[in-house]
């Protein structure tokens, strides 16, 4: 949301819709891992937000979702919400989501004329895992009184799930690029032109 150039109505609408998508992904999970903090499908949404909307809008979408959570809407997976979720040991991860979406967006969109799978994968690893942990682990360590290496060790429990989510996000993003390129609104290039159709029912990307 801290953007120097103003978001226009299209940006606002996309930010809102993506925040809603991340909320909807909360309905899937959480996938309980015996004895551990559950894995949430919402970080998948965080990576997708960055990969699809780009750094600023992606981070804004996550920010809006967290604002809603903070004011008391139960939009995190499992119906969690409220200021309490920011005060606990996982609060840092949530702040990390904003940075995560930004970093993913930067890596996937920066100077891009098209979406390439390895950029999404790298973005997912750096933004969707490293960046999130970068905020999550120090907070976790501060809150729990464990040292950073010890916190790092305990959070390894998330790693398998997070790696799977990065792989899934990569496949989804590349598929979306084939299915609906205008979704990405890449700055440097218009979406690949759709060949005009010969007949009267010419190509339509907005029917209504």
């Amino acid at each position: 949301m801290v953007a120097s150039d103003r978001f226009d109505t299209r940006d606002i609408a996309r930010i809102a819709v993506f925040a809603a998508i991340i909320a909807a992904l909360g309905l899937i999970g959480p996938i309980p891992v015996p004895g551990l903090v559950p894995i949430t499908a919402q970080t998948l949404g965080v990576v997708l937000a960055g990969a699809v909307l780009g750094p600023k809008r992606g981070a804004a979408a996550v920010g809006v979702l967290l604002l809603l959570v903070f004011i008391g809407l139960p939009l995190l997976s499992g119906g969690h919400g409220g200021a309490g979720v920011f005060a606990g040991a996982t609060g840092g991860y949530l702040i990390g989501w904003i940075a995560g979406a930004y970093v993913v967006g930067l890596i996937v969109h920066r100077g891009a004329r098209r979406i390439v799978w390895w950029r999404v994968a790298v973005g997912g690893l750096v933004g969707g895992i490293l960046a999130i942990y970068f905020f999550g682990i120090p907070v976790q360590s501060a809150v729990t009184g464990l040292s950073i290496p010890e916190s790092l060790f305990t959070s390894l429990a998330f790693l398998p799930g997070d790696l799977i989510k990065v792989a899934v996000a990569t496949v989804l993003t590349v598929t979306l690029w084939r299915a609906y390129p205008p979704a990405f609104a890449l700055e440097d290039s218009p979406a690949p032109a759709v060949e005009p159709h010969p007949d009267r029912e010419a190509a339509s990307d907005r029917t209504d």
Partner: protein
Amino acid sequence: MTGRTERESGAGRGAGSGLSTSIEIDDVEVQLNGRRVLHDVSVRLDQRRIAVIGANGSGKSTFARLLNGLVAPSRGRVVVHGIDVARDRRAVRDRVGFVFTHPDAQILMPTVVEDVSLSLRGLGLSRAAIAERVSAVLGEYGLSGHADAPAYSLSGGQKQLLALAAVLVREPQLVVADEPTTLLDLGNARRISDLLVDRLAAQTIIVTHDLDLARRCEIALLFDAGRLTAVDEPGAVVERYRRQQA
């Protein structure tokens, strides 16, 4: 495909003749999120072309969705072509095709070919057989030229044709269509209506606000506030609906 369709439709023609095209709804009630949206619906349908009309929110879509198990009755029984929908959802889905209002919602894959192929997965067909059937169906619906185009780039009418193709490629015995022509122009609407009424399956149920289309069916059902209030010759039912809405 065409061959099979014609054979089947011949069989289904005689009212009440074969089990194969009979739908029996027995004292059905549907609750959604704790609200009763269908009450005491009982009807037996042997006709080939069936229209469903009624006001917004009267329960038409809910009724349609009962027929392939998208919605489960909270009471009563739904038997489609001899199959109890609650018992054997798989068999019902293989037999019943469903066309939604918004083509966007039912186009699930990035390109036209992939989307139609998706319908043939899990039927144990070889890749080559799938490709062949898909290209035959695309030809039939005039979509061959767009086979590898992203589905989003199609026009409204083309998208609805694609949705139909993706349903029809499975050769369902019953096609249920929920307002399939609402977003279309005259020509496209006629094209889709003609397909639904004259050609596609042994039995077709069309939910529609287009009263001319309803009149082209053999029988019409009228819903009102969650109740089935008329089952009769379409002209009469349309008249009744008009009066009710006046």
